[in-house]
């Protein structure tokens, strides 16, 4: 983009590393990626589809063309700030997270209009990633996985792990849980769950994963991974809370905190108490199951 070539005798890779960031587009693309990751939608979309002729607010393209970024001045300012701070990703993340736009609620008072989207006038909800979805079930129910072996990178063979992984996010490649099913192992169920969330393989092209489907609902409602973890048996959260002799209010409070990261409202406590009135154990199992299936749990908001 700059037209510059490696200096005589210069290592071409080092030259690429020197020349590439010297163009402001490097910084623009980088901050736009961070923005898109944090705010669900980038200032330029798709994030790999920049049109260099439509980025400069001081030099707009001739009509009918329009400037490409949702907010060209903001994109430029973030890019220049990124460059001025030694290309620190941490600095960009901090800057964005301190902004009003990032801190807005997903709830929007008033009538929402499509045209507000480029203004980032609310937080955008997104579907959980495959790994987030499957790990959050384990985390909310306090029942981590025991991934004792993974598919190795060589020859497609199983590799036994000396120390089992408890969460898929600990794996270098989440796809490694695929295809290894042993008695008592949950590997394939974990992979099936992630598949419902469009877990891509390394060799497959990215499909837009921000898609809610009925299969995700079916999985969350009936997958053995979930069924087992909502039961008041063994070391699940429900089992431990009941064994600890906690009061109804305390158990309800802890289930809401662990699953939805918030305290229950009065109305919710009332509903929960009616649910456990008939059978306390089954009632709390049902509440744990229901909380996992609320839209509040199902989306990143």
């Amino acid at each position, binding site marked *: 983009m700059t037209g510059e070539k490696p200096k005589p005798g210069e290592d071409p890779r080092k030259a690429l590393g020197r020349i590439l960031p010297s163009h402001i587009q490097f910084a623009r693309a980088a901050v736009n990626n961070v923005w898109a990751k944090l705010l669900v939608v980038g200032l330029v979309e*798709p994030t790999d589809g920049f049109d260099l002729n439509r980025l400069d607010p001081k030099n707009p393209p001739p009509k009918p063309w329009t400037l490409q970024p949702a907010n060209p001045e903001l994109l430029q300012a973030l890019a220049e700030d990124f460059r001025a701070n030694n290309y620190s990703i941490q600095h960009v993340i901090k800057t964005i997270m301190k902004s009003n736009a990032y801190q807005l609620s997903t709830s929007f008072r008033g009538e929402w209009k499509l045209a507000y989207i480029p203004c980032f006038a609310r937080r*955008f909800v*997104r579907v959980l990633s495959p790994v987030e979805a499957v790990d959050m079930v384990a985390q909310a129910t306090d029942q981590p996985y025991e991934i004792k072996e993974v598919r190795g990178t060589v020859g497609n063979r199983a590799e036994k792990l000396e120390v089992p992984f408890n969460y898929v996010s600990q794996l270098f490649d989440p796809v490694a849980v695929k295809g290894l099913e042993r008695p008592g192992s949950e590997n394939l169920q974990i992979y099936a769950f992630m598949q419902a969330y469009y877990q891509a393989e390394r060799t497959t092209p990215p499909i837009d994963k921000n*898609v809610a*489907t009925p299969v995700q609902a079916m999985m969350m409602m009936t997958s053995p991974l979930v069924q087992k973890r909502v039961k008041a048996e063994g070391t699940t959260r429900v089992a431990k809370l009941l064994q600890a002799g906690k009061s109804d209010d305390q158990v309800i409070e802890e289930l809401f905190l662990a699953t939805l990261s918030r305290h229950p409202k009065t109305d919710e406590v009332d509903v929960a108490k009616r649910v456990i009135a008939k059978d306390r154990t089954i009632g709390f199992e049902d509440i744990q199951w*229901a909380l996992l299936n609320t*839209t509040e749990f199902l989306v990143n908001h």
Partner: protein
Amino acid sequence: MVKRLEEMSRRELLKLFGISVGAVIADSAAWPRNVQAQSKKITPRGTARNVIFIQNCGAMSQNETFDFKETKWTAKDLNIQKVNSEFLISKTLFPQYERWAPKAAVVRTLWENSLVHFTGMYHSQAGRAFNPAIIREVPAFGSVVAYELEKDRKPSDTFPTYMSVDLWNTRCPQIGSGMLHPKFAGLDLNTSTVFDSFAGGDAKAEVDLARRWEVLNRISEASPSGSGNTLGGKADEYGAHYEYAYKILMDPRFKKVLNVTDEERQRYGVDKDKGTCKLGLAMLLARNVLASDAGTRFMWVSNAYNGNNGAADNHDQIYGRGALAPRGFLLPIYDSVPRLDAAVGSLIEDLSKMPGKEPGKTMLDETMVVIGHEFGRTPDMNLNFGRDHWGPAYTDVFIGGGVKPGRMIGRTEGGKSIDHGWAYKQQPMKDHVTATVYSALGIDYSKKFEKTPSGRAYEYQQTAPLGGPSFIPLTDIAELFV
């Protein structure tokens, strides 16, 4: 700085559509708009009520199977039989060919310009060539089928019109519904997990689910975010999907779909199948879903085996057995073809014995079964005694649903078409297979969506030039039916 919609670029609109889909098309009639027929007068055939589309992943060699050609490399033990004067078949590879081959019609001169498994599979699933610029808005053509057949759905229908089996484990997984409402996205069943995940439910499990559903609704009503409607976007979609999913899970017909006997497993070759995805189970699910008459009309079945390109990607040792057998994801043709034969043969046999919806008709009369491929395999062997990707001529198979048995369309020599076998100068392509499926289901494939997120019209059957200067003829493969 609020941009008006008409000022936004195509790409901005695509993304906006993606994140606000729930709000924009909560009413399924709201999008797409301006569905119009093209100028050419098309009368769809309407010969089939259902379609089962089998994607034979990996591009099984036509040279040993559906367009047999004996060359100096051909194995001597293939035991070639004559189905009809133009259809030779190996009894070694297809020991049960008599159950399906006499009912089959074959198109041998299909042409594909993209010789990559992903793009080939994408082309099959989307019914159009891969174009990254509009990937978000392009639906699977099964989704378009579902959109078109929505008007035929009954209140008792709980299954989606478009379902698939083992699409998840292919080189090109579910494309989704693109610009169409998410309810047309298709429901993909995974043969390696669907039985464990959903079949185990007994009467108690149903009682439990019904009770928990009630708890979920009560908690959602009391929740500050309600059923998610203040969150907007994706949260709105989940509300609709949960209603859908609950109805399916509580429908006894879904349990019946998952009820597979030992005799059926044996007959469909399930027990011999070492793949993660078992083709016999996929066929049984397809059969059972259609037989349940719960709303599904279009079944996509992926012969995925162990994922990646599929078991038939025989670049090495196509006849390899023992120490020479191909490894990893692949099977020698002595294993991959009998596996297909057992599953397809049993499916066709069963469909031909099951009563159709119309008196006097069988399920096979009302169901078009297609065996599709990404592309073909080279007529010559490579140095590893395998066959590589080949676009000039490949073969798809059609059975039932109004297809005339025994039709052999097109002739090839040296891997190239010497007689296209139909009315056009160009060879037939995947787009014509797509049009054939639409046509058989009574859908006018000349329609197009004029208003799309990108602004480009979406033709049901793609006609834009592909890999050459000529427009693709707008037609189904009429010769299959006459």
